[in-house]
């Protein structure tokens, strides 16, 4: 593991913890930006150049701008003072630990003994340059690519529709049929 990789991974994990840990959502958002950038770095180190750039542009750029925009719009406050119960925290951490062990254990075991030669041989084949990605995308994944554009279109229209509606109040809760005798 190279130094760069180590640093980026450390920043990524730390900023991830920051996203979860900061009480102020704005801090979380900025922390997430840092996290996304560090992941972009890791992509670059893995040879996925196009994805690294996309990550910066789409995630750290567009999506996070949107998030920040919404946060500003909603006149954000810190999360209300209600504390998270100790039991619940413990339970969550325990579950997290189990999942981590359960996933990472077998996965690491699966790929532990990959010969170095294979990896080095693969470096060239898996180098995600814009050209390489483009060739695959516009040949093998042509249909999916076009469909994804549709998804984006629907997303845009839906977002506009949802955000546009005004004066729509949820009906007040009714007692329903829960009247006892």
């Amino acid at each position, binding site marked *: 593991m190279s130094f760069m990789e180590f640093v980026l991974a450390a920043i990524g994990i730390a900023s991830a913890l920051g996203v979860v840990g900061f009480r102020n959502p704005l801090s979380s958002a900025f922390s997430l930006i840092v996290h996304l950038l560090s992941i972009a770095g890791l992509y670059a180190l*893995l040879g996925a150049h196009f994805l690294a750039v996309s990550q910066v542009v789409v995630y750290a750029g567009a999506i996070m701008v949107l998030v920040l925009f919404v946060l500003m719009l909603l006149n954000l406050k810190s999360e209300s003072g*209600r504390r998270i119960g100790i039991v619940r925290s413990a339970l969550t951490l325990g579950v997290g630990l189990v999942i981590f062990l359960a996933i990472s254990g077998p996965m690491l075991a699966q790929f532990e003994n990959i010969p170095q030669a294979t990896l080095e041989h693969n470096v060239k084949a898996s180098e995600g340059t814009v050209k390489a990605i483009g060739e*695959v995308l516009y040949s093998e994944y042509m249909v999916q690519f076009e469909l994804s554009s549709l998804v984006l279109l629907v997303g845009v229209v839906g977002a506009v529709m949802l955000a546009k509606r*005004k004066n729509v109040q949820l009906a007040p809760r009714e007692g329903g049929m829960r009247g006892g005798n």
Partner: protein
Amino acid sequence: MDPITSYLGIACLLFVIGGIGICLRRNAIVLFMCVEMMLNAVNLAFVAFSKIHGNLDGQIAVFFVMVIAAAESAIGLAIILSVFRSVASIETTDAAELKW
């Protein structure tokens, strides 16, 4: 530890951190960000797999995930906005209308 498997380990860790965040936080936007974080963890694993297997399929998958995530974030944030309009809060505890 092998460098490439350490990527997988990091991905797992990030995924779990995101999950823990969803379980513990109440702010809908933070929840949303945690979801993005989990997606990123998986993306990272995909890229690592791409390298392990020596082809670009993993990276293509990441590309599509990004596209979907972009659409999802647009819709998700719009939903958060309209929920905020009706309950004047973006804390998930306050929007519990659908229970029972």
